[in-house]
């Protein structure tokens, strides 16, 4: 219980630090993002005093009182009030983020879990069959595939399966004729559109799990209790799964939380290539249009999601490893 409480405390502290980082980032930058933002926004028509104020709270006033800005900023964040987007003026930033979030959460969440399970199993197999082709193929293939840039895998899949062979749709998250909702046609279309982005993330992230699991598994296979289990005449697969893999999976689980940040980053690239309307695609649109409020909110959203996922992994770790609960 103390373990869980400590983790909750740490989560709150980390969330606060991430929110604060997001506050200081534009203020540390050379030039004035605020001026650039207001100049940009005034192209859409006159800037109201309220909008101007909101931008100043988010991006900073050159000679304002930092402390009071920080207070107002915290209030904005806690009430999820991020102002209006410049690119999609006058839509509120919070609405845009809300629309994009489910796509990324489902896509990245699902693929990451599949990649973790599959990669861990392949890693166990590679370590157990060390020196055979069952080791060489996943290890070499995995390290080569994990060196593929996300966007390149995406471009190749899009080119061959989308344009040349026309098996999968080339962009978007659902067909133009489908209306989002819980209908069979919409879900089918959405799944069809998600295949290529999902496969891209899977190809690129699988290798890391294989290698990580293989290396820790090789270490545990050398431990005395494994030799002892073998000497006792236990079946090889019992030794591999119940003894060696069970202990090797713990460090791999820790890297699960940390690798998630990388996968989320990769999904930004993947979504861009496929025009998939998730958080990453929106982030790039915000960046290219210098839509700072949207960019700030998205970055905060991504960070908070990854922090929460890490928190869940930490709690899970505590359940699986009794030593942490002391």
């Amino acid at each position, binding site marked *: 219980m103390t373990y869980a409480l400590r983790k909750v405390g740490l989560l709150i502290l980390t969330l606060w630090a991430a929110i604060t980082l997001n506050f200081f980032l*534009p203020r540390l930058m050379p030039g004035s993002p605020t001026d650039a933002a207001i100049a940009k926004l005034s192209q859409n028509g006159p800037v109201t005093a309220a909008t101007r104020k909101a931008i100043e709270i988010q991006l900073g006033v050159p000679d304002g009182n930092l402390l009071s800005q920080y207070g107002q900023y915290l209030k904005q964040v806690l009430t999820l009030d991020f102002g209006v987007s410049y690119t999609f003026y006058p839509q509120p930033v919070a609405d845009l983020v809300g629309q994009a979030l489910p796509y990324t959460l489902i896509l990245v969440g699902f693929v990451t879990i599949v990649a973790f399970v599959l990669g861990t199993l392949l890693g166990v197999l590679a370590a157990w069959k060390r*020196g055979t082709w069952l080791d060489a193929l996943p290890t070499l293939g995995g390290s080569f595939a994990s060196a593929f840039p996300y*966007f390149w895998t995406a471009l190749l899949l899009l080119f061959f399966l989308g344009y040349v062979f026309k098996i999968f749709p080339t962009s978007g998250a659902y067909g133009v004729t489908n209306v989002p909702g819980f209908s069979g046609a919409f879900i089918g279309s959405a799944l069809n559109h998600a295949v290529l982005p999902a496969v891209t993330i899977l190809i690129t992230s699988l290798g890391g799990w294989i290698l990580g699991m293989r290396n820790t598994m*090789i270490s545990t296979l050398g431990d005395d209790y494994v030799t002892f289990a073998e000497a006792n005449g236990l079946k090889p697969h019992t030794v591999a799964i119940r003894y060696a893999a069970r202990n090797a999976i713990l*460090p791999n689980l820790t890297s699960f939380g940390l690798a998630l940040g990388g996968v989320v980053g990769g999904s*930004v690239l993947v979504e861009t290539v496929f025009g998939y309307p998730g958080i990453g695609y929106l982030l790039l649109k915000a960046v290219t249009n210098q839509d700072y409020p949207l960019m700030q909110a998205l970055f905060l959203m*991504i*960070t908070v999601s990854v922090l929460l996922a890490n928190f869940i992994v930490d709690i899970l770790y505590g359940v699986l490893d009794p030593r942490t609960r002391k």
Partner: protein
Amino acid sequence: MTTTPITAGTPAPPPDTSVAAAASPLQVLARVAATVWSNTKARIGVVILLLFVLAAIFAPLLAPYDPSSTEFARSQDASAGHWLGTTAAGEDVLSQLIQGARISVFVGFVAGLLSTLVAVLIGLSWGYVRGWVGDVINFVVNLFLVVPGLPLMIVIAAYLQNGGIGMIILVVVITGWAWGARVLRSQTQSLRGRDFVTAAVFSGERPARIVFREILPNMTSLIVGNFFGAATSAILAEAGLEFLGLGDPSTVSWGTMLFWAQNSNALLTGQWALLFAPGLCIALLATSLTLINFGVDGLSNPRLRERRKVRK
């Protein structure tokens, strides 16, 4: 949160006194190179890496044309004159590809070196200090570990506005040092309790000297491994940022080639070579570094070395 125990197989047991420091840095380097070379995967990696480095150094001599010249027919397929075709702006793809090796090798080397430097400075001091300072560093490092790197890079790059290679290196270093710092810290912590460190403390050495002259040489392999790892992620990050159009789009690099390829609809014109080649180069260069790290892993963990004979 724990990292994999790497303490089990530190290379040779450290000497009891600092006086008996046997091997010169050159000999250590030679031993490192020999161990790495003895691993087949690492050997393949070294060969690939050398090819890219040579291509980068001799790019002006190797490239058949000026990579930024736009004098050729546009969007051509592969031909005898242009082995990989031409871009939508009329540049020779092969020449651009060779020129692009320069940027990637340079960014990988410099950003890898800088983030390793930061990781060594922070990781070692962090492993040596005790008390609340360590807790504070722990918090900061964990924060940098969990904040997703690429989105952070994108946001910083957006504020800095087309800063070119220097900006990309800076961004990669800011987001990439934390992992190495954590690995080096746990190794420092375990070495800190060894007798040779205690001996150095008793003989009145200053902490900075103990950390960087006594402890540091025992972690050569980890630091080398960290360099290759950091260089790999730097190369991938640089290509990613440029692909998104966040670098300087006028530089000729593999990332910008793909950026222009996508923006000029190379997918529709069917120029697969233009799409395929730059990404393959990025992947090969990154793989070569990963492969070298297989050999480097064997330095610190003999269990991961390739076995000559099958166990049992």
